[in-house]
């Protein structure tokens, strides 16, 4: 059965990340499915993992009844679903088709693909190779498709930290968020946040100001950026960082979508830091999601009489048996991510000159001419390499000597 025409498939190919090996029809099927369900629909996720997006879509297009669907899924899997949801499969399937089928529209899927193409963005289906590893921890709750605007490389295997907090932050929170972002940039850690006002905006802004990489996860579609007060910031992120959404471009935000979006923030970061949170702050839901997928979570302390920090303190107390810590100072961020000294000495991002110079270092301090001779560089090259290494924090100059840092 052919669900899609050739031209439709070509349209999809154009918005896949260049070099992707994914099949356009499975991706387009995922796009169609993503229009059917609300975020975090685990029932669809389970079917999806069992059958693949193309077969699931075909089953829905054919309007299979529960008997036909049960046959395709096999007796064991049906049993598994019944156990998981404590409902009869017939009931589960009827409910699901009642939810999904009214939305079934091929045109909508094609339109969304056209829209992301018009925005200059990309999309990644859940079965694509480029699908971020972190999101797989959401198991059946992971989004069928994520929509991207900006630099998709930020989703590759690089260290990321989610920094979130209240939208009504005060000066303390703002300055701490900026410090944490600075430490992240220094250690080449990508910051992830929600693009909202308050702490989120500070995180994105500080990271960009220091020429670091930042990811903003949107609750709505990329064609309807929200909040409008942050429109300029979000556009800058789209240029030098990355905007991520699980909703198709034309979808507006809703309260439910905000809460579900938080699970993506938690899953994209290797750890989550909550800078400031009131008693009912949404940032705490991000922390909860992070704990549920066993990611380290850190709370920034505040004055105990501050309404801005009470959520952080309470969360810390309530989850002492889980992996929640106090972030005592911004510099502790790399260790929160399990980054030791090797990570800091990592030569990622260094040029050839710098690597050669760094290789020449022994454990003892060296003078510039020794580095030059051992690395076989010219005077000028040595000066450039050493200057660059000093700025990147790989070596430090102590008087006449350069010392390799191994903190």
């Amino acid at each position, binding site marked *: 059965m052919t669900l899609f025409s050739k031209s439709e498939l070509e349209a999809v190919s154009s918005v896949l990340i260049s070099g992707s090996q994914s099949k356009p029809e499975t991706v387009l099927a995922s796009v169609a499915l993503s229009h059917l369900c609300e975020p975090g629909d685990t029932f669809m996720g389970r079917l999806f993992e069992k059958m693949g997006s193309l077969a699931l879509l075909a089953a829905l297009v054919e309007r299979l009844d529960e008997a036909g669907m049960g046959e395709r899924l096999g007796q064991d899997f049906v049993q598994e679903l019944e156990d998981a949801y404590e409902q009869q499969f017939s009931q589960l399937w009827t409910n699901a088709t009642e939810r999904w089928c009214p939305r079934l529209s091929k045109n909508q899927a094609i339109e969304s693909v056209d829209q992301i193409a018009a925005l200059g963005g990309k999309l990644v289906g859940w079965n694509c190779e480029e699908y971020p590893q972190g999101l797989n921890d959401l198991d059946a709750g992971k989004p069928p498709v994520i929509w991207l605007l900006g630099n998709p490389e930020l989703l590759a295997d690089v260290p990321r930290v989610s920094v979130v907090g209240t939208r009504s932050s005060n000066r303390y929170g703002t300055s701490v968020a900026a410090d944490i972002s*600075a430490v992240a*940039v*220094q250690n080449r850690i990508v910051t992830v946040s929600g693009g909202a006002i308050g702490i989120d905006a500070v995180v994105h802004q500080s990271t960009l100001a*220091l*020429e670091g990489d930042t990811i903003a996860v949107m609750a709505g579609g990329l064609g309807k950026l929200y909040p409008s007060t942050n429109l300029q910031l979000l556009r800058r992120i789209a240029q030098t960082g990355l905007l991520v959404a699980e909703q198709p471009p034309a979808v507006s935000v809703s309260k439910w979508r905000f809460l579900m979006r938080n699970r993506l923030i938690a899953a994209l970061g290797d750890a989550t830091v909550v800078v400031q949170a009131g008693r009912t702050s949404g940032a705490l839901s991000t922390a909860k999601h992070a704990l549920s997928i066993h990611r380290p979570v850190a709370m920034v302390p505040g004055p105990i009489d501050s309404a801005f920090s009470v959520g952080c303190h309470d969360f810390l107390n309530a989850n002492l048996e889980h992996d929640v810590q106090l972030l005592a100072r911004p510099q502790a961020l790399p260790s929160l991510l399990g980054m030791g000294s090797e990570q800091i000495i990592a030569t990622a991002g260094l040029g050839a000159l710098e690597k050669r110079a760094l290789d020449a270092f022994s454990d003892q301090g060296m*003078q*510039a*001419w020794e580095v*030059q001779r051992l690395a076989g560089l010219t*005077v*000028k090259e*040595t*000066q*450039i*390499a*050493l*200057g*660059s290494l*000093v*700025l*990147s*924090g790989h070596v430090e*100059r*102590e*008087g*006449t*000597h350069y010392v390799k840092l191994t903190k």
Partner: protein
Amino acid sequence: MALAISHSISLQGLDGKVVSVEVDISAQLPAFVLVGLPDASLSEATARVRAACGNSGFNFPSQKILVNLSPASVPKSGSSFDLAIAIGVLAAMGVVSATELAGMCLIGELALDGKVQPVLGVLPMLLSARNAGLRIAVVPESNLAEANLVDGIDVLGCSSLLQLVNYLKSEGQLVRQVSQPVDSASRNAAPQLLDLSQVVGQDEAVGGLIVAAAGGHHISMIGAPGSGKTMLAERLPTILPRLSIEESLEVAAVESIVGMARLERGLSLQPRFQAPHHSASVAAIIGGGNSLPKPGAVSKAHHGVLFLDEAPEFQVNVLEALRESLESGQVQVNRSAGSATFPAQFQLVLAANPCPCGNYGVIGKDCRCGVLRRRRYGARLSGPLRDRLDIRLDIQPISVSAVAGLATGVTTSAQALEKVTSARMAAAERLNAWGYTRNAQMPGPILKANFNPGRKAIAQLDRHLAAGKTSMRGYDRCLRVAWTIADLEGATSPTAEHVFQAVTLRGPDQLMGEE
């Protein structure tokens, strides 16, 4: 006639004032009295003048001769008034006509036999005389070359009192000499005793020196004794652009008052090199003098290089006193008999051993200094002074291969000067609108606001600053040096590589790891 007036010049620093020498001869007990705040050297003029006149055949009358130096409230000093006093007395005696003396300035010291001796400060004196509207200047013949540098005043040289008297009686001539205004040998960097190519195996330091010359940056050099710090510093003037005529005149005026002017072949356009010893006093470095202000080493190094070898060994107050001139390009010297302002725009080169014994960090040698001792040594150079040093060069002991003549990349002074000159032209063109000529002069705020090399080039430096690892001043210095490197390489704006190189050339905030 019993009253006559002649004119001379009294110098206060570089600033000269016209002094009227009024002579009155009256019938009282015979005496020769000089009034008008003369100092000891000037008071002795009466003895010299009486003897010189007598030996030239003009015996003083047995009357009271009163000489007043007007304005009488300004302290005066030196032997250069001798000629004016003698001629004033002779005019009052009627030997020469007093009307001849109007608009004429007389400068010179008299020997007892009537010969006219050379004096100090002729150049600034004549500049002041011209500016005060005097038309004729009579100077010692030996000072003629120097005096001729001043335009707009008729300069005559005389060798004896008698010759001058004859000239004033229209019975003889004085010497007029057309001398060369500029020493042509100093115009170009002709082969000299000192050349950059004589420095072998110090490519890094030579490169840094060229950057310093191109941007006018103050530098520090740290290195073991005998590693060639002095050798490098001495060659800095050979790669600095030649002085302009005005600059050269400013320098010559300073040299004239301290007797260092060598103007027989005309003005020298070579930038000067001053290397005072580390035992020097504040007065020797900044300026001083017994009662009247005299310029110090900073002014003698005006438009040139001031080299302080063994900088931490200088008295702390000497080093601190440098700050004013580094800031303003001039020094004000205050003494009991008045104050004077001298120009002092020099390029500072500080040299220091890595530690008091000099062996710290030197391969094959043991340093005997404790940590505290080393720390104290470096701390003698205060933060504000170090803030002024844009470039820091680590001078390495010369390598065996370099000694064996295997070293490559020998740059001659002429080659370096060419690069420096074109870099300075690029900088001057760019900075013209702000009234500066060299990158080193740029204040940080103007630099950051108008000469930002672009995010790509300074992103890493910005991060370093944001992380608190670079001070704002250090940041500015990196930026200044990066611009100079870009100018040297003919780039329109510094690249990231230029910034990296600048970070290395600028060195750490501390000088010897003492903090």
